[in-house]
């Protein structure tokens, strides 16, 4: 059987070798280049980042109601608490103003199937890197009109800086870090 006619030549020609070198080279070039180029600018040269993030449990949505002696008697002895409190918590609302302009109003519902968990907010704001007058208000009670927590500050942001607005549960205060 004439092998040469049936099968491509096992010895590659010079142009085939050159083709291989070219294709391997192009592949290496593509891998090498696009594994680090073009450079990516995540943030502008004169921008900074503010992260508003907290996990905070709102107040219960209603007041505790005292149970009458008759109602208590109907309960098993081990469940006779003198008051009945709603499980559901208030959504937590945060408002952020920069230089007097509102840039964020976010209401976070309580987590959990019974809406009795903490509310969480995570939001990024890209702002110019300069001095900013910040005003943060946080409400955690649907029954209250005014914000429960407030923080006003003048911050000087440098390019690329990350400012985190958080809520410190121990100090019961809004923090900037």
């Amino acid at each position, binding site marked *: *059987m*004439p092998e040469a*006619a*049936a*099968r*491509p030549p*096992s010895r*590659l020609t010079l*142009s*085939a070798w050159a*083709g*291989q070198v*070219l*294709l*391997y080279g192009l*592949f*290496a070039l*593509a*891998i*090498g280049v*696009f*594994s*680090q*180029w073009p*450079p*990516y*600018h*995540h*943030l502008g*040269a004169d921008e*900074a*980042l503010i*992260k508003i*993030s907290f*996990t905070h449990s709102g107040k219960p949505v209603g007041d505790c109601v005292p149970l009458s002696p008759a109602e208590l008697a109907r309960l098993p002895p081990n469940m006779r608490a003198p008051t009945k409190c709603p499980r559901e918590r208030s959504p937590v609302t945060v408002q952020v103003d920069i230089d007097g302009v509102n840039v964020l109003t976010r209401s976070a519902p309580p*987590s*959990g199937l019974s809406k009795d*968990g*903490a509310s*969480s907010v*995570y939001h*990024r704001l890209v702002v110019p890197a300069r001095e900013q007058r910040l005003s943060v208000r946080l409400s955690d009670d649907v029954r209250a009109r005014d914000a429960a927590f407030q923080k006003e500050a003048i911050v000087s942001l440098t*390019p*690329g*800086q*990350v400012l*985190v607005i*958080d809520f410190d549960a121990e100090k019961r205060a809004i923090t900037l*870090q």
Partner: protein
Amino acid sequence: MRSAAALRQLGLTGWRAAERRFDTAFGSRLNPLRHLGALGFLAFWLLAASGVVLYALFDTSVAGAYRSINDLADLPLGRLLRGMHRYAADTLVVVMGLHLLREWLVGHERGFRRFSWLTGVPLVGFVFVSAIGGFWLNWDQLGQYSAIATAEWLDALPLLAAPLARNFLAVDAVNDRLISLFVFVHVGVPLLLLFGLWFHIQRVTRAAVMPPRSLALGLTAVLAALALTWPVTSHAPAELGSVPRLLRLDWFLLFLHPLTDATSAGFVWALVGGGALVLFALPFLPQPARAPVAVVDAANCNGCRHCFADCPYAAVTMVPHPNQRIGRTLAQVNADLCAGCGICAGACPSSTPFRSAAELVTGIDLPQLTVGDLRRRLQQALAASRAERPLVVFGCDHGARCATLLGADVSAFSLLCTGQLPPSFVEYALRDGAAGVLVATCREGGCEFRLGERWTDERLQGRREPHLRAGVATERLERVFAGPGDEPVLKAALARLRQRVQPLAPDGHGRFHHA
């Protein structure tokens, strides 16, 4: 649907053109475009090998993680390891994407291949999760950016009570346990990937988990050279109080992050989810009816196991023969796995056309084109031929169209796959009046049914059973590798054969001898 089919056809035309160009440089057998799955495996093995060494050198503390990786830049072996690890990951993503594209273009998402397709789609996710998790381990600015971007992206789904991204708000929030979690992701998910790969190739016999040696060496050498000449280096150490201003992003692996920045997390989730949904749905879209599957004839099956050995999709198993003779087995076809390619019929010793039975029934056969039909059509064609030196062509439905060769002296038979051809048919045709026989298979490595061209070649060369008998005049046989679109190659092969049989003279009994 029509536009999708047109798009697929257009893409397939372009793909085959690219394959032919690569053939000229690598040869058909070593064409990387025909070994994409195996190249993906090679990239995985390179990742695993370099990863094991890197892990041994890795310090899993926050303070030490960056230093332990960054110090590798001081050693050539360290640069090689780190570069190989990164560039092999890039290679894996590239060949995986091309593999997915090719399989869709040739319609391999449907029919009996549905299992392989469906088990392959989740692997795309595993690859990206593994790869992206690797950047976090280094805990440089790029790792910081990727970890936070991933956390923010995951937080877009209402799955967790507290945002994951809160873990990266302050320096003291990142501790050694978080690095251990990163290690868990970067080691655990690749193990899942390996497990998934095992599923992916379950229904494929002789799965290629390593490309041909020269191709494997070539790619490994290229990646090693790239690692040494263009070393992978770290960014500055992570600093959670600031945003890295400029990142040398690996666009193969991390493109989802800037895409999220440019659009939104919801958009990218819709894109990823929608893409996955489309990939999973493709095998269930309306498609052509499946080819009839192979049928076993117990009376003609002697349990030789040739079909069992040759089936490319493990559709044939051997079971005890119903005649209850001890040790005698019978082939059994699993219809879900059968491709209907006919390679089993070509492997069956009972398929020889020299059998004296008026109706040729073989041990395992394809209802749409039985071996008996083929013999009858061959007999009729040779009997009807008025040519002085009749030529017979056996070709493949999926290769170069042998119908284009029709001429006064040519009888062409297009088979389901050339692997369906029992080699004894060549001798039979030569004895029955053909001056020469041309056997055309797809290009090497380009068989629609994976192994048809290889088995045919080995059978005709006497290296695989059933083989072509040694006494057959080889100058009257021409073999050619001609894939779809290779009709000119086929014509050239026929011209060569015609020229070779020219000196032969008929003896009046349908036999040809040298004049």
